């Protein structure tokens, strides 16, 4: 059993060392990543006090089933990201280790202010990484909005602190229902908006297009899977368990989630560049998953979160590699590219079909669970989810068909019309693609082997009482 504090401390320590010993940083990064990826499975569950102060007075880390599974997923994703982006690491190794520490802390922390700190750590690292793509204006936008988001979040928790006198999540969740309505609205909307910036909810996410749309093989998967998963998981934690909105306000949030989903999917449909398309798809998925968290479908939300994260790893890695190798990612110029690298094509296809939610792939299980929990609420939400899925399916299928089959319109498909594009340094991605592809297929046929822990995680999220007693039980 591994103490969760190590998951934050060791990456930070390694980052510190790597500043001094540049040559070792490569080894350190991979070592740390492998360590966290493996140790995620052996994480000790329960509450950990930092500095010996008992909650609600001190800061604590909380490993329940929910954060446990998120930690595993995030650290695995981080490792996969490193693998697929290992030619892009350059000078970013230290910052990557900081990100790893930050994202682990973000998921595990049990304190709202501590969460803010970790959030700042990863967003600032995010600015630095994003700046490596030379699109400074986009980074500037990210900076402005990210700062705005952090301020809004900070303001929200300030209101809470002023009212309740505590920032400990468990403590707040216990007292939150008794807070007056206007304070609830103010604090909730500020926290919502603040997190919405990172979680890519619609009116707050203007930075995403510039950042995601110009990613490299490293930052693409990193932002779209590791960051996105972390941000959405925190979102789920806070609005699913800690600051549960009233039934009326929640509909406003659900509406925003659904608007994000459908609007972003239509934007993706109108996109001609692969990375841009995937960007909007990521936004859409974020909207969908947050909607699921809001309506209480934690199980479905988690499955879709994992499904989306692993699928996007392949999709973004491939898209960014294609751009990196050819300087272009216009879909029309890529026709028949999969014929040159069938393994990546397989992984990409499976990931895509899983994302759309077609049967025989894991995503279908996510979809039926989503519909099931959406129907428990009312009839309109599932209808909108289905509408979004139709749009999503259309542009992904258009993409797949194009990428598999070279050929002029009106002529038989043939190798002659194949794209001039190539994928360089694709070996690690091929392996990842095949691996994830097989996992998606197997878990699409027998979902049980993945879902057992997810179900536990969802239960722990909806079971606030256990959370409280674990954290505050000592008092």
């Amino acid at each position, binding site marked *: 059993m591994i103490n969760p504090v190590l998951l934050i401390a060791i990456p930070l320590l390694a980052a510190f060392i790597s500043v001094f010993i540049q040559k070792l940083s490569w080894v350190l990064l991979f070592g740390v990543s492998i360590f966290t990826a493996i140790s995620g499975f052996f994480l000790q569950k329960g509450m950990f006090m930092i500095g010996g102060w008992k909650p609600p007075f001190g800061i604590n880390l909380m490993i329940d089933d929910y954060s446990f599974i998120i930690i595993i997923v995030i650290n695995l994703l981080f490792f996969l990201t490193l693998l697929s982006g290992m030619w892009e690491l350059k000078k970013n190794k230290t910052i990557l280790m900081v990100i790893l520490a930050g994202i682990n802390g973000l998921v595990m922390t049990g304190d709202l202010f501590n969460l803010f700190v970790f959030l700042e750590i990863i967003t600032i690292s995010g600015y630095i990484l994003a700046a490596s793509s030379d699109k400074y204006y986009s980074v500037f*936008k990210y900076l402005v*909005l990210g700062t*705005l988001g952090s301020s809004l979040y900070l303001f929200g928790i300030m209101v809470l602190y002023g009212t309740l006198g505590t920032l400990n999540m468990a403590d707040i969740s216990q007292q939150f229902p008794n807070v007056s309505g*206007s304070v609830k*609205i103010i604090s909730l*909307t500020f926290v919502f*908006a603040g997190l919405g910036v990172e979680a890519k909810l*619609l*009116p*707050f996410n*203007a930075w995403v*297009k510039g950042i995601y749309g110009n990613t490299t093989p490293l930052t693409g998967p990193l932002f779209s899977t590791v960051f996105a998963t972390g941000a959405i998981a925190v979102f789920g934690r806070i609005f699913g368990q800690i600051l549960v909105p009233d039934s009326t*306000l929640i509909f*406003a949030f659900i509406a925003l989630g659904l608007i994000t989903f459908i*609007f*972003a999917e*239509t*934007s*993706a*449909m*109108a*996109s001609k560049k692969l990375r841009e398309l995937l960007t909007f798809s990521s936004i859409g998925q974020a909207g969908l998953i947050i909607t699921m968290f809001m309506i209480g479908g934690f199980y479905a939300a988690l499955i879709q979160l994992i499904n989306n994260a692993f699928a996007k790893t392949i999709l973004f890695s491939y898209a960014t590699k294609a751009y990196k190798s050819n300087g272009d990612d216009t879909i029309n110029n890529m026709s028949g590219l999969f014929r040159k690298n069938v393994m990546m094509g397989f992984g990409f296809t499976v990931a895509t*079909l899983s994302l759309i939610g*077609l*049967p*025989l792939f894991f995503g*279908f*299980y996510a*979809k*039926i669970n989503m*519909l*099931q929990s959406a*129907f428990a609420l009312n*009839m309109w939400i*599932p209808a909108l989810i*289905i509408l979004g*899925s*139709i*749009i999503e*399916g*259309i542009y992904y*299928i258009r993409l*797949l*068909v*194009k990428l*598999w*089959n*070279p*050929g002029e*319109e*009106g*002529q*038989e*498909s043939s*190798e002659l019309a194949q794209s001039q594009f190539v994928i360089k340094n694709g070996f690690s991605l091929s392996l990842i693609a095949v691996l994830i592809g097989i996992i998606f297929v197997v878990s699409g*046929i*027998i*979902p*049980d082997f993945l*879902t057992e822990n997810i179900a536990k995680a969802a239960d722990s999220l909806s079971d606030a009482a256990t959370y409280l007693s674990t954290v505050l039980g000592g008092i």
Partner: protein
Amino acid sequence: MTINSLIAQGMISSLLVYLLTKLNKKLGAFLTVLFSGYLLFVIFGFQNSAGEVFSLIHFGEFELTFMTSHYAWYFAIVLTLTYFLVSFFNPYWMKKMVNPAAYNMLFMVSMVGTVGVFYAKDFLTLFIFYEIVVWSSLFIIPMGKSRKTPVIYYTISSIGSFAMLYAIFYLYHSVGSFDIQAVSEAMSQAPNTYRFVFFTMIVAGLTKLGIFPFHTWLPAAHGSAPHTFSPVLSGGLVKVGGFIALITATVIPSFKILAGDLQLMGVPFENYLIMLLGAVSIVVGTLMAIKQEDAKKLIAYSTVSNSGYIIIGLMLNDQVGFAGGMMHVFNHAMASGAMFLSFAAIAYRTGTTKMSELGGLIKRMPLTFAAYLIAIISLAGIPPMSGFASKWLIFQGLASNGMMFIALAAFFGSIGSFLYVFRPLSAAFLGQLSPKHKDVKEVPWMMQIPLIIMSFLTIFYGIFPGRILAYISKIQESVGLKGVEIEGTKIIAATGMWDSLVITLVFGGGFMLAAILFFISPKAKPVDQMNTYTSGEFIYDPDHYHYAKNYYATFENNYGNKKRVELFFDAVALRVKEFGEMVKTMFFAKSVSFSIFWIMLFFTLVYFWGDKV
């Protein structure tokens, strides 16, 4: 052999086929023939099985199960037969295919998928296999002529399948079960729920069948799919939609559940509305088929029209019309399969399916011609081929209910079908043989096999339609309808009867008489194809002397040339894209100020009206 292990075997051997095709292209293709034959053989053994339950796997908290039934067998045998017969063409097309391994694998997956659809005991299983069929067939289509049409196919198909998914979960929410039997029992108490489910679920059937306004994918996809896959799409996969309609309207007995609703011409208005859509698709399909230049597109539009007959028959839910609709499933599978296959054969030898580039092929490909001829006689509903039996039954069903507007469409489609089926016959097989096709040969013997079998079945069941109708009457009884009445070779409806054998014999007699007259008369002198009455002109070029282009131009002029439904869908797609662009400019603008505006707006809204919520 059980259904569940059959499905598992199919899925595994599709992988095997993939690998073997990578090794040797022909080997893999022959394996598809072998396996589809095996599947046909095994399915055939389930002829009299009903109510046997097989469990496939636990899918999360759900269980996927199969159950045998008569209607499932009927559809499964039609589909596997179509797949089996078409698979004979596969070995010859491997060289021309861009990705033969994937083709063979997807061919198998879609075949196994259809079996899964038909034998599903619960809606979840049905939906899973339905979607498997959709995506597996989807990826075959772009190997043909177009990369756009699979998207059209997927779009329309997913509109249907997601509507069905919605209905399924709506049912699950209100009934608490996916099981078709349980749902159908629960629905008899809840006609209001069912009314909604009926319309949402049947959309899947309509999209797959290509019923107006969802017909646009058929000509697009069937017309541009690989030549060997079009017959499967048209003859086979379209029928999956028929099956969904059957489940929605008959297996869940709509006629009983909705008996309290407004009845139009003897059926609930819900069924009547669907029939009206079927009627419109008959007319649209016929009119559009008449003016196609490409034979494959023409046959695809004819499928639209024939799907209309199927849905009309099924929605009648009576003794006669329903049997006609069911029988039409088989007839159309054989007829359109044979038509597509004979044009695949032509494309194999000449490389084109454009009718204006062909002509006079009867002299070079007589067997293909014969297969095509028999198929179109059946498709046009002319005795003594099997197509007449189903059309006759549908007409009788319509007549006994007095549905004159639907009958108008049915009659129009039936007479109109003479026009469009004759056009390829005339333009491709008859008329002047083009010099560039002088050395064309008949297709290899293996490609002849399916043509011969399809023709044989069409004739055989034309003479003895009772053989099929007897089974259909079993189906009817199993779903609570009165079985169609057969007496020997006589088929009896409430409004009349006919005897297929007598008609065949009389026709045979008439033909003999004519033949005798012909042969006792002085022998005719054979002349060259160019040796005709030319109004005194000197004719030297057979290509110019062949009437094939704009065949029915004069008729087409009467109804214009706008594809209004396609235009509408295009407009919708354009609007969606424009909306997407608008979202991009409004929320993801280059300037960050837009975003600040939205955030401010959000907070303004919250603080102005937040206290209200």
